[in-house]
């Protein structure tokens, strides 16, 4: 499945998301203070940081679910004014509609008037196939395991064919083995769809496994501390020296040796 793009096949090095001097405060806490960041089209960008560093707030601001107090966020050159089908979101606690089946959840974004798919049923089948949920089309979320729920969450976000996929600690609630498999599947999907991904996590191993670039945020107030390019060939071996080095450097930057991987 290719992204309907008339640009050349090579990923252009232009900014898909531009975040400029964004600030956001809640009562007494400064969740984001003067955050600037740019994400290239087609890039897999992971954001790591301790809890309270505003990484989820930043993701929600890109999604248009949260309105920053200051600064600007541009997506494809246009300022974000609210949620849109060009940005799909995957939630930490799945946020599936419990009264809808797997098929019904995936179909949700395709039923909106703003979305015109020529054959929505075929699209749903394609996505069910993509995330490996054949045979569970008519199951309700309560009947699914955590990993399967998040597969539905990903397929649902992918359904309207967004250019950007925003993921908020999507695998935080699944067991380690399932998480490993979901990482491989997500990378497969990303390779096929050529989407821009912003992936929030507090798990450094996870970030280094997935990302082209890891953005490290610091807490109180939430700021971007530094970014690390991860140029290890995929699939990445967690025991390889390169991998271990990257993890160690990021952990040092975070300055929290207690925050070991889970």
């Amino acid at each position, binding site marked *: 499945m290719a992204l309907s793009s008339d640009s050349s096949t090579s990923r252009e090095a232009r900014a898909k998301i531009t975040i400029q001097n964004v600030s956001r405060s809640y009562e007494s806490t400064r969740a984001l203070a003067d955050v600037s960041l740019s994400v290239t089209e087609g890039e897999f960008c992971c954001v790591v940081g301790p809890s309270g560093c505003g990484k989820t707030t930043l993701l929600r601001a890109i999604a248009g679910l949260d309105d920053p107090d200051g600064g600007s966020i541009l997506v494809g050159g246009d300022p974000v004014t609210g949620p849109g089908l060009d940005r799909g979101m995957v939630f930490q606690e799945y946020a599936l509609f419990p*009264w809808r089946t797997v098929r019904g959840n995936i179909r949700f974004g395709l039923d909106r008037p703003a979305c015109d798919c020529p054959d929505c049923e075929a699209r749903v089948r394609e996505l069910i196939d993509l995330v490996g949920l054949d045979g569970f089309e008519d199951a309700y979320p309560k009947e699914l395991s955590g990993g399967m729920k998040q597969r539905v969450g990903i397929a649902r976000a992918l359904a309207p064919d967004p250019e950007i996929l925003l993921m908020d600690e999507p695998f935080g609630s699944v067991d380690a083995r399932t998480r490993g498999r979901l990482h491989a599947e997500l990378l497969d999907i990303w390779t096929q769809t050529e989407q821009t991904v912003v992936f929030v996590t507090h798990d450094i191993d996870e970030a280094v496994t997935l990302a082209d670039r890891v953005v490290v945020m610091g807490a109180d107030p939430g700021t971007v501390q530094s970014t690390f390019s991860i140029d290890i060939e995929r699939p990445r071996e967690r025991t390889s020296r390169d991998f271990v080095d990257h993890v160690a450097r990021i952990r040092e930057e975070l300055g929290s040796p207690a925050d070991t991987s889970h």
Partner: protein
Amino acid sequence: MSTRTDTNASAVLAESFEGDLRRYLRGLGGLLVFLLVWWVGAMTTHPSYLVPGPLESVRAFLDLFATSTAITVPVLASRLVLPTGFAHLAQTLFHYVPGLLLGAGCGISLGLAMGWNGSLDDWLRPLVRVLRPVPPLAWVVFAIVWFGIHHTGAAFIVFVGAFWINFYGAYGGVEGVSSDLTDAASTLGVERDLSMLKLVALPSAAPQVLTGFRTSIGRCWMIVVGAELFGAPGVGYEIINASNNLAMATSVAYMFLISLAFLCMDVGFRLLEGRVLAWR
């Protein structure tokens, strides 16, 4: 509900069957003890009309279906001849059903609107606080002066009762809609408030809305009998009517009839609820 880790399915099944059987037997035992106490009580009480006995009551119940009574169907104004028990039950339903449905419809609508719309909530909340504690039967005086105590007046009282229970079911249901779900829907292209209400809030609130309605089925039976004690035709009126003639067994027979009617409605609605909420 079993928390055992026993994996032998047939043993678990046999045990749950045994458990069910034990429960049924206990329930039956309770009923038998009650019947015995009732029977002894009736035997030893004088004068005998104070406590009609079980057998006498069953006979009176059967008698309800041995004779026929003609009733007038409201609105259509046509006459209908039915076995006496059904005739009076029908009279009750002529005001119970419209009162319940209309009250539930209005209560759910207002509950959804107030739960969803913050400024409407601000406007109406104090009013709701003031009106809510008034028992539906207190409205009987207005039912009488506005509508006269017939079907319309009784339906009005049932309406008030159904209204509040359903109002709170819908209100609480919509207030409890998770922001995760509305966020997910926004990122999937739901823009208009009304679409959000229809696509997310309403299905999410459905369990509480339906529980509210089921509760109102029972509550409205209590209210309807109360309303009929003031003179609206129906089973409640017949309870009083029979006792005025010291035919207490007939009063008991109508009490049975109300109980049966409620049971049928409750079981029917639970089945419906189970199907609609299969996703839970």
